[in-house]
């Protein structure tokens, strides 16, 4: 019966059902007044942590989120799903827009050390930027083993068996703890945060700190040049046979 402690990182993103609109000045997408919710893969990560706790393999779950004050809502959802306490690393809205996986990974690494956790769980990627880097970078900074795209996680003593979904099929790894795991779609089906649990979550503690307090450098060497709509799909052209196909392709300069 391991007494592990887990850190789960959750991100607040635009809800998957919303129609995204690009801002007229092309600096990003419209976020004002738009419905936001927890990144679906982060939900899966929280669910996995809660299931481990229910199996009495994990003692404490800490939910963490980096960003402006609205992130606290996302942390509260994690608390309502079963996390024990939360940490909000407050980053003002303007800075948050420039925040990328590297900066978040630096924060998570520092927090993992500070809180002395044995397991860091994240979603494999966020549905807004699709970076798929934070988990990997965090493991790198901590010099911990990583099991990404996890579709099954089993604790075996002080080792973690992780089954990964990769292009070629399924790969199973055995990681020595402490480790970083990122959740893929089929890892589990997250529970609904029930209303009574949401009310209980109000009493759980959420600590608010600044990135600077952790001694983390939030600077980025990347700037977003422009954000544009993908080009409108134009109608395709039907061809009768292979000769026509080759001719058409030559015509548009593709071969």
């Amino acid at each position, binding site marked *: 019966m391991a007494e592990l402690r887990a850190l789960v990182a959750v991100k607040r993103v635009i809800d998957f059902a919303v129609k995204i609109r690009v801002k007229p000045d092309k600096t990003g997408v419209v976020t004002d*007044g738009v419905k936001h*919710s927890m990144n679906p893969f982060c939900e899966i990560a929280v669910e996995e942590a809660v299931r481990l706790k229910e199996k009495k393999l994990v003692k404490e779950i800490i939910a963490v989120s980096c960003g402006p004050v609205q992130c606290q*809502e996302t942390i*509260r*959802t994690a608390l*309502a799903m079963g996390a024990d306490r939360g940490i909000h690393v407050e980053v003002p809205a303007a800075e948050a827009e420039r925040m990328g996986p590297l900066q978040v990974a630096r924060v998570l690494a520092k927090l993992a050390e500070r809180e002395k956790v044995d397991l860091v769980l994240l979603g494999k990627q966020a549905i807004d930027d699709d970076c798929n880097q934070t988990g990997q970078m965090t493991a790198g900074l901590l010099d911990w083993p990583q099991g990404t795209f996890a579709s099954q996680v089993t604790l075996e003593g002080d080792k973690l068996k992780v089954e990964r979904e990769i292009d070629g099929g399924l790969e199973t790894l055995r990681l020595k703890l402490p480790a970083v795991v990122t959740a893929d779609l089929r890892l589990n089906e997250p529970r*609904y*945060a*029930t*209303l*009574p649990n*949401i*009310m209980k979550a*109000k009493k759980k503690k959420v600590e608010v700190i600044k990135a600077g307090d952790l001694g983390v450098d939030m600077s980025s060497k990347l700037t977003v040049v422009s954000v544009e709509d993908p080009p409108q799909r134009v109608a395709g052209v039907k061809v009768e046979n292979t000769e026509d196909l080759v001719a058409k392709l030559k015509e548009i300069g593709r071969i």
Partner: protein
Amino acid sequence: MAVCWLFLRRVAAARACQSLVTPRASWRPLCTGPPRRAFAKELFLGKIEKKGVFPFPEMDQDELNEINQFVGPVERFFTEEVDSGKIDREGKIPDDTLEKLKSLGLFGMQVPEEYGGLGLSNTTSIRLGEILSLDGSIAVTLVAHQALGLKGIISFGTEAQKAKYLPRLASGEHIAAFCLTEPASRNNTGSIRTRATLSEDETHYVLNGSKVWITNGGLAEIFTVFAKTKVVDSDGSVKDRITAFIVERDFGGVTNGKSGDKLGLRGSNICEVHFENTRVPVANVLGEVGGGFKVAVDILNSGRFSLGSIMAGMLRKLIELTAEYACERKQFNRTLSEFGLIQEKFALMAQKVYAMESMSYLTAGMLDHPECPDCSIETAVVKVFSSESAWQCVSEALQILGGLGYMRNHPHERMLRDARALLLLEGTNEILRMFIAVTGLQHAGLVLTPRIKQLKGNSMAVVMETISQRLWDTLGGTVDLGLTGNSGVVHPRLQDSAAKFEENVHCFGRTVETLLLRFGKTIVEEQLVMKRVANVLINLYGMTAVLSRASRSICIGLPDHDHEVLLASTFCAEAYFQNLFSLSQLDKHDPGNLDEHIKKASKYILEKRTYVCSHPLDRTS
């Protein structure tokens, strides 16, 4: 001649006084009532009780964050896991859906926290109600359980009763039902026949009777049952009075029929419930013995207003769905959305939804206020307006889809069938209109009785005052009830609408007084008159709500507040003219008042019990 001159001097004097004093202050009622006067009741006196209505009730940020937290999971559950089409076809809510609803905590929203519920305020409850509307059968099941079935225990139960029953009702382990209606007493509560007889040893009552149209009748474990009991009055006489009881199915003798084959709300369980020699312990009397009528009325009053937000939530989704269709579908080489008649329908739907939402949340704010005044009229208004608007709007939305709307693979036909029930449930709209009118007229009557007596008793001063005031009105004196201007509570951009509203209110107050003078107590027999009175009041309450909400939206700068102003002013303008028409018809000599004709025609038809006219093709030879 001298008398004439004296008369004129008096008129002049009275009018001079009148011009210095606004109509509102000219007759202050003998104010011995509670500090917070009920808004709708005061409208009957031509007064606008601004407190509590302006500004529009606002929730503090913390509570709002909490509500938003609740909304997320519930919305997700309904969109992802509730298959309304299936529920409608199979006539049943699947067991695992019910289980999930229970675990989400939706069965105990208004049960206080200490008994295992969520202890949500009225405002929060109706906000969640907006999401429940995604499935009519589920909404009705939950409303019947909470707002009706167990509400009595929360409001009137003893500590022991609450501790015993509420926890399992809150978790959904037990479902509750409200048993009032009987085959012979569908609208007339006072005439129920179910009887509860006290046993010889006075330890329990024996309950016998049949109840009909009981929502959750087949699912419930706990019933709030109303029965006649013998009560000894203070003067020693023995009377039959209604008492409320908490009855457990386990008490024995409780059976129910099959769920009725209904037009809509087919997933809900509505059936007959029979009690045969059911033994109910004396400890299960709810409230006082003989005090059941009040219990019933209280529960019904608070239960019915949640329908407003439920309808608003459903219509919002419908507008979205239908707008999507109207903007994609092309006819005559243009999208439907370019045609005037289609555009009109959307404007109508948006207006109605805006008014419905505004009225619901305004009423919820009133009910949540610690000094809660008597909101029975307001809740009835919300129910009548919302149910009728919903019926109208769903019909229009279906119409926009044309033939597709008529097909069962689109949700519109199911929503139409579900919406139809609301005109009947929880008090038919006809009964509620009478209730609105009678309650308001009674209140006005109480306040105005001294004046009316004086008028009838030909007190010269009072007669003069009245005549001069009517003169003032007819000569086009402006009405200022304090809504706009320097200390106004309505935003200047809504000035026109506010002025229309004030004019209507003033006229309404006068009309009420005239009606009371004309009919006295017999006004309760004049349903066609009372219908108009109720319609005016419903419009007035709607105008109040939209003015209050729009003012706030402008003041705090909500996005799209210009659109709100547009909807609010359109609603007010329409309501204004409708009111003028109704009010003019209430005048004794109005040529547009066809009541006598209507009564005559219907009398003949009902005497013969058929349509009476000869066939168009009939000949005499």
